[in-house]
């Protein structure tokens, strides 16, 4: 039984033959975790192991994706496989949502429960002088009952985070325009708007880097600034990392567009990356509201 595809007839379900990529990728990750674990414990060689592992891993991934792309362009992927990819990308994004949920949950818990509890009447037994206020609400507060956190200034929504919001929202629009152009068969326009999207992502990262530098240098707001600094940098930092990954995805898709990959009907690689980008976008809106505005 075969399904007709744009590039001829594909098998009912394509199952790849033996592959060395998975085990190679696992070996790469072994060096990554070995190196990371040793490096943060002060063993310099760990850094080399980490770098080696990451390079190895990236190299394997390149080959692996190369295979998948070749198979896809070779017409081996039926519509059914297309559906498989859709399901898998969707649930992968869901798992990412849950990862962020852990950190949003931590922020919620700290603001609503633990910091108020630390400053409660009961707890005055331990921290008699502690006033439980969230740093973004009352200037000068550190939310540190032991007073071990150096004073810092928080970052409000103006101007950088708002600029970043605009950047990301715009990138969502350019991406959608690119998608429509692809469906309409206008490859040049697709590519142009893809580059615009990638560029917006890069600018976002630069603005965020600038914001971090500002926080560290001028505001004395650091990762070690108590629970506020912890939640602030971990949430925005992981988000930034996801922007970086999403930007890479879009970049590779753009390069593939240059090579003539994808058709106006079949371009799941494009769509999957676009979903991911929108997910990163939505997370940012959440951050923008609860981290910067509240």
């Amino acid at each position, binding site marked *: 039984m075969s399904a007709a595809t744009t590039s001829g007839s594909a098998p009912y379900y394509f199952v790849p033959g033996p592959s060395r990529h998975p085990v190679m990728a696992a070996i790469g990750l072994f060096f990554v975790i070995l190196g990371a674990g040793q490096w943060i414990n002060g063993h310099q060689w760990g850094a080399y192991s980490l770098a080696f592992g990451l390079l190895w891993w990236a190299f394997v991934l390149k080959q692996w994706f190369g295979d998948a792309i070749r198979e896809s362009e070779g017409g081996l992927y039926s519509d059914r496989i297309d559906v498989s990819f859709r399901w898998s990308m969707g649930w992968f994004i869901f798992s990412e949502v849950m990862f962020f949920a852990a950190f949003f949950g931590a922020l919620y818990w700290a603001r609503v429960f*633990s910091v108020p*509890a*630390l400053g409660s009447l*009961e*707890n005055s*037994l*331990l*921290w008699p002088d502690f006033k439980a206020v969230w740093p973004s609400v009352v200037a000068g507060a550190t939310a540190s*009952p032991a007073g071990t956190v150096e004073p810092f200034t928080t970052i409000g929504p103006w101007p950088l985070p708002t600029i970043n919001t605009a950047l990301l929202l715009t990138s969502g629009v350019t991406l959608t325009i690119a998608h429509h152009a692809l469906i309409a068969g206008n490859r040049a326009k697709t590519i142009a708007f893809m580059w615009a999207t990638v560029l917006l992502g890069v600018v976002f990262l630069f603005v965020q880097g600038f914001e971090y530098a500002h926080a560290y240098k001028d505001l004395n707001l650091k990762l070690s600034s108590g629970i506020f600094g912890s939640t602030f940098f971990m949430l925005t930092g992981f988000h930034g990392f996801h922007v970086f990954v999403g930007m890479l995805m879009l970049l590779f898709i753009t390069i593939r567009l240059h090579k003539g990959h994808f058709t106006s009907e079949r371009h799941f690689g494009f769509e999957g990356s676009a979903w991911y980008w929108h997910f990163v976008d939505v997370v940012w809106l959440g951050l923008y509201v609860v981290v910067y505005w509240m």
Partner: protein
Amino acid sequence: MTALATGSALAVNDLKGGPGVNQINLHEPVTRIAADQMWLHNFMLVICLAIFVAVFGVMFYSIFKHRKSKGAVSANFHESVAVEIAWTVVPLLIVIGMALPATKVVVAMKDTTNADLTIKATGYQWKWGYDYLKGEGEGIGFLATLDTEQREASNSGKPEPVDNYLLKVDNPLVVPVDKKVRIITTANDVIHAWMVPAFGVKQDAIPGFVRDTWFKAEKIGDYYGQCAELCGKEHAYMPIHVKVVSAEDYTKWVEGEKKKLAAKADDPSKVWELAALVARGEKVYAANCAACHKADGTGAGPIKALDKSAIVLDADKSKQINILLNGVMDKGMPAWKQLSDTDIAAVISYTKNAWSNKTEQIVQPAEIVAARK
């Protein structure tokens, strides 16, 4: 009751207020809450056992009757909405029936208001600190540590049979009978849990936060418990011993304790002789440090040796003072700031002059006072 597998080799008896030999149920309750818990547990046991017998009665009946070897031919029903609803609703009702009495106990358990006496219990690695905060005896405070001989007996691998093995502490907590005692728990380093089964009390002690629980013991006697939250290596060695005494005895105890405190209160500005301070430090060391660093100061595994330690031998005394006051969290060394200035000065002076360390250095309490600032 004699021990069954070990015969006479382990001649242990029931410990009143602590575990009994081969005890198979909860401790005999001495508070209302513990009695309620006991009741609830029996109640659950009966219901669960009844369901168990009913369910498995049916199953084993079926297993014996509906066998192929007995010529059973299988029926072919495989659905019945009525039965399925029944066995969803009935268990639901049973569960609700279980939850009702439990709710009452939960509410009673959590009511810590109107206490006659408030005591703070602080978990340290690995001992308990008690501070009488409110009520008769206010101001009393002490540490309760496992008997060192029992700790060593444990290490020997062949502890002599004693009834209160691993439950004997140097300073038991003393409380009056029939008074509502509120226990505020907190911790200095990691999470511990303060538990006394006979009172039906178990409350985690969380660093940086206070939690509370209460009991009102109805019988005079000694009651025992242990730390019930993994807190590191000596988790099994920080027992709880509560002495419940009559009101008069309690008053007497409080007076005695107050006198002792007054006598013991050291003047941190006093200037000590080396020998006297070292002698005092030896005691402080045995009570607090020897559990990890060993009596001979050699440490073990990740625990640093103090004998020949560079920091101990260092002429810059502030290094060691700093470690004692602040701990080295990630290496497992707790902070010891709860000890008095004199005790810290004494124990540092001791380590600087014990074993092969012969530095002749002395640290005076005043230096600790200064370092604390």
